[in-house]
């Protein structure tokens, strides 16, 4: 194990290209949790404390994943992957900027929470998932929906409250649902999505074990630093580890819950440490660097697919705008904002791609232009779409049309002899 690193890391400052250690081997860990530390840890004074504390428990927290710069020619991503990541992040940024414009023009209303600055987390995780994997998010969910595959048109229409939106205008900014892309919401209550995500992961396991289906689906739950003080978070960490569910808990720690600083509201601000307390690995990663996030995500998703259980990943990130478009954002220090603006994930990826000759500036500009056009077209589409009809007000309250348990054929569903998969044996 490398021991050359001895300086204590500042809590929220991690420089990008720190060449520190022997190469990190991302080999698959053996079946016990102990193997996990071998692949991803960097010893530090804090980690040593942790190793002592966790001596008895088989799980040790992992502190930091550093993007290594190997001398050999194997980079972390291929050109195609790089362009996909870049396009996704540009889509997220352009879309959110356009939302702000539309809001101030009065086309969007209510609560709108923008994701500027945090794109690396969404892209880093969601671009590794398949269509049948599930994502559960909070009210800051536009970019999660876009990364998961919901079209920009559908999201924009939903924000405008038009019938062509992904939820036909009935959900809104905070409730993006898409069954096709397994985007399970969009929840306004802090912490509400975490148990729902745990339930979706539970279904994965149930399908494998009870229904004997081939199911490798994982669920990724995104939530913020403020949520990590909420009871439901801990309840779910406990149960996910207890039942070994295929779920990844991703904390988007942007240091602020509206105007409440994370350091003012949390007794121990290091959220990744809370994972090992429940028996799962806790990882801290630089959330402004999409490649680092992607490496951690790969490991966590592979663990979950193999049936080894949950992972808690704390991504240190920052939101460039206020909590919502109604937030005057007066409490945050300008110096802090400037510091993180210098670590813009899109600029960082662009620099990486160009410096490592994975893409030319021209190619990246083409992508930016294409996305600009896509977002503008989405706005035009949303503008031109009609508002929902009056009859839509009373629709979809229940899955069955009249709420009396009557199926589409007019008979009571419960009397249909074919309603079950088997015969009842008493």
């Amino acid at each position, binding site marked *: 194990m490398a021991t050359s690193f001895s300086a204590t890391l500042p809590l929220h400052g991690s420089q990008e290209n720190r060449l520190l250690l022997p190469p990190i081997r991302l080999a698959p860990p053996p079946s016990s949790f102990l193997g996990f530390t071998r692949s991803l840890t960097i010893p530090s004074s804090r980690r040593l404390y942790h190793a002592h504390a966790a001596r008895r428990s088989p799980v040790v927290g992992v502190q930091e994943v550093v993007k290594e710069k190997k001398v050999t020619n194997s980079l972390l991503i291929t050109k195609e992957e790089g362009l996909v990541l870049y396009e996704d992040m540009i889509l997220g940024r352009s879309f959110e900027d356009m939302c702000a414009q539309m809001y101030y023009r009065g086309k969007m209303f209510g609560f709108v929470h923008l994701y500027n600055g945090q794109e690396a987390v969404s892209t880093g995780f969601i671009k590794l998932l398949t269509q049948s994997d599930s994502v559960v998010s909070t009210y800051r969910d536009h970019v999660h929906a876009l990364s998961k595959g919901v079209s920009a048109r559908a999201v924009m229409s939903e924000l405008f409250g038009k019938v062509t939106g992904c939820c036909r205008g009935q959900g809104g900014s905070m409730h993006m649902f898409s069954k096709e892309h397994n985007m399970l919401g969009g929840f306004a209550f802090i912490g509400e999505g975490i148990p729902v995500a745990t339930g979706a992961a539970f279904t994965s396991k149930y399908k494998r074990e009870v229904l004997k289906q081939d199911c490798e689906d994982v669920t990724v739950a995104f939530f913020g630093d403020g949520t990590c003080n909420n009871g439901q978070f801990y309840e779910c960490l406990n149960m996910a580890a207890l039942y070994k569910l295929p779920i990844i808990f991703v904390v988007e720690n942007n240091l602020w819950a509206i105007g409440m600083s994370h350091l003012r509201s949390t007794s121990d601000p290091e959220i990744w440490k809370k994972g090992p307390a429940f028996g799962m690995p806790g990882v801290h990663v630089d959330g402004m660097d999409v490649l680092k996030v992607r490496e951690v995500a790969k490991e966590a998703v592979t663990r979950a697919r193999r049936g080894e259980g949950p992972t808690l990943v704390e991504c240190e990130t920052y939101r460039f705008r206020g909590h919502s478009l109604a937030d005057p954002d007066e409490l945050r220090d300008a110096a802090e904002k400037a510091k993180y603006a210098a670590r813009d994930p899109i600029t960082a990826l662009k620099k990486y791609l160009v410096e490592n000759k994975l893409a030319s500036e021209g190619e990246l500009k083409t992508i930016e232009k294409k996305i600009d056009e896509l977002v503008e077209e989405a706005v035009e589409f949303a503008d031109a779409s009609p508002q929902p009809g009056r009859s839509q007000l009373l629709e979809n309250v229940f899955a069955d049309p009249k709420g009396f348990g009557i199926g589409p054929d007019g008979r*009571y569903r419960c009397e249909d002899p074919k309603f079950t998969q088997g015969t009842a044996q008493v």
Partner: protein
Amino acid sequence: REKMWGILRQRGIDGGGLSLRRTRSASVSARSYAAGSKEMTVRDALNSAIDEEMSADPKVFVMGEEVGQYQGAYKITKGLLEKYGPERVYDTPITEAGFTGIGVGAAYAGLKPVVEFMTFNFSMQAIDHIINSAAKSNYMSAGQINVPIVFRGPNGAAAGVGAQHSQCYAAWYASVPGLKVLAPYSAEDARGLLKAAIRDPDPVVFLENELLYGESFPISEEALDSSFCLPIGKAKIERQGKDVTIVTFSKMVGFALKAAEKLAEEGISAEVINLRSIRPLDRATINASVRKTSRLVTVEEGFPQHGVCAEICASVVEESFSYLDAPVERIAGADVPMPYAANLERLALPQVEDIVRAAKRACYRSK
């Protein structure tokens, strides 16, 4: 040959009778079923309903505190762990918000959870999930994601369990669009409604009553059949009458029936309606009955303000005002948290005498 004719005649009668009964069970009928010679407790009725639904559909699973090894806090899930194993009967930690949310998430993804609350008072720790992630999801997602989940458990007052264990939640849950709220009374109600709830594609809040668990009711052969279920949203007329309509649900149905007998001795014929379903409320049956009798008495155990009775009274006044011969009567629990002392608890809940008095008032026969 005579023997043969005899046998054929016998078969003809039986065959005809059997087919008649089969079609009756398949029809939606609010008439009372034939009283069988069998009796069944509500507890056994619920247990058999969950058992049958679990064996019929492998996507149904049970989750809650003490449902497995302890055989159920009130023994409703007795024997299920042994029969279906720990992958389908989950003993959860004491985390209502967590496991209710997990149930809702599993329902989003296609399973059919039956989530037990030890009492519905504990559901307040999980009410965010029942209302915000279960009830509202089908609407918010415009029909993409439905939630076929059942939340069940004892509701209302028990015997001497104090204020924090005795609240009735029918009114709270029934005011939320997107939920179906059921409240069985007899064993037949319990079986039929629970089976219908588990098969239903929407979230159902199933309010049982602890004091009814041990009570035995006659149960018919149709009700014992494994495909038996009752329609959601239809009330049952437990007793026909022509002078006054008494509308109620759950344990109060028993009290209302006793009150009806007492009233019959005094020459008042009371019609007793067992709501069975609080949401959707069977306004048609209630109003039809009030139009027949012209007088209404509603009874519930819960707090009076904004209760189920308030909704029924408003509905009747709105729809059948010109048929009413007397002001609508509303009997509810006392407007206080439930006291502990046995005599005070008795005072805080409606009793048979209260129902009798109210019915007489409605019939202008009070002193």
